[in-house]
């Protein structure tokens, strides 16, 4: 019984993990630099670990959902990511899926009368 918190936090983590890709995709219609993406998502209440996000961005790039570009104007070179055309389609479909799922879940979770 003592580890209710432990169980809860690992289950919450699992729930959240499923939403990361969609949250990231939602922010990348404009090119963004990884760390500002972390910050802006944090402000909106979605916390993503930096060490999860960076590898994730790269994986999505490999799947050609995102495209990246180095910007070397400032004193530090920064890599900007944004959605590709394929990414747009994926994002659109995933959003539909998400809406459908939340609807179903809400119905499921509503207290029975």
């Amino acid at each position, binding site marked *: 019984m003592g580890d209710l918190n432990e169980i809860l936090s690992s289950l919450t983590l699992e729930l959240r993990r499923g939403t990361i890709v969609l949250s990231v995709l939602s922010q990348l219609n404009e090119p963004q630099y*990884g*760390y500002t993406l972390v910050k802006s998502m944090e402000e909106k209440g979605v916390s993503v670990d*930096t*060490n*999860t996000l*960076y*590898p994730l961005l*790269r*994986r999505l790039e490999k799947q050609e959902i995102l495209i990246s570009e*180095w910007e070397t104007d400032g*004193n*530090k*070179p*920064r*890599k900007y990511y944004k959605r590709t055309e394929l990414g747009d389609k994926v994002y659109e479909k995933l959003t539909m899926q998400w809406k459908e799922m939340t609807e179903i879940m809400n119905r499921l979770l509503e207290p029975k009368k």
Partner: protein
Amino acid sequence: MKENQSNELIERYLYDVIRRLPEKQREDIEQELRTLIEDMIEERAESGEYSREECERYVLNELGNPVKLAKSYRGGEDSLISGEYYDEYCFILKIILICAGVGIIVSNIASTVIHAVDAEVITNGTWREMFDVGISLPAVLLQIFGTITLIFAIMQRYNVKINVEEEEWSVEKLPQIPYKKAIISRGESAVGIVFGILVILLFTYRPQLMGAWIKRGDSIVSIPLFNLPIWGKVLPFFIISVTAGIISDFVKLVAGRYNYRVMITTIVMDILGFVMTFIFIKMFPIWNENFIPELQRETERVISAKGDILTYFNTDTFANGILLLILFCFLLDIGTTVYYTVRYGNK
């Protein structure tokens, strides 16, 4: 961009992540992480409350264990051969398979064309030879593939075990970036491994090809250099000796640098290798005693001139000379390894 020596921690962190990644991605990821770390540090330093070093430690701790970070860059899932060694694995596999494949085909063609003078050793009909290649080539290649995969898999399990033991990660545990001179080029170790395996294949499957090839009329004959009838007894010693070298090259390849583990393996394996060499050169009549007479008969030339190395063939002087040369090579290897380890091993 130089920020004094406290940058050292960041460099060590980056090094520890990057070395676990496939070669192709290293530069890009390093640059990306470097900027990220700098940005995170700047953000934390803004308040002015913390020193630069405190910020560094905080940020690196937040990014967490380099092993885990590298793993998530690689795509995370455990595979038989992970990204950490995948480059070397593919590289070695490719070279050895190509060399062995070409080697087997060429040596088969050669031994069909070249007939050994010792008729008992060789040879079957051409068709039989072709049939042999068809059967043995895939089998040998498969064997090589399996062996190399197994070695890498074992190596990886072993290393993973070491990493898991260090569950509590902290900045202090970051490895030092090796001093340039302590780094062992992976190509060098790979060449050693490939060469060793090819030598074993040659000595095991086609010892008759090592000898003098002489044109006799339309055909080519080969006078074997070695005493083939007792070859079966010599071979185990020879194989152990070469395998010892291959093992020490493998350890070098994995470590990628000189350190005490590499030094000890090298010394042990070199001694083992030399003892085995000593046994088969001194204890067995490994040379073909008919080599010179047959050579004279085939070439119709008398070898007697003083200083001609062939006059010493199969004498004690000859064996000792070769042994001395081999000893020199082993000592040179031990010498350089000890020197580099003691001098740079801890840097």
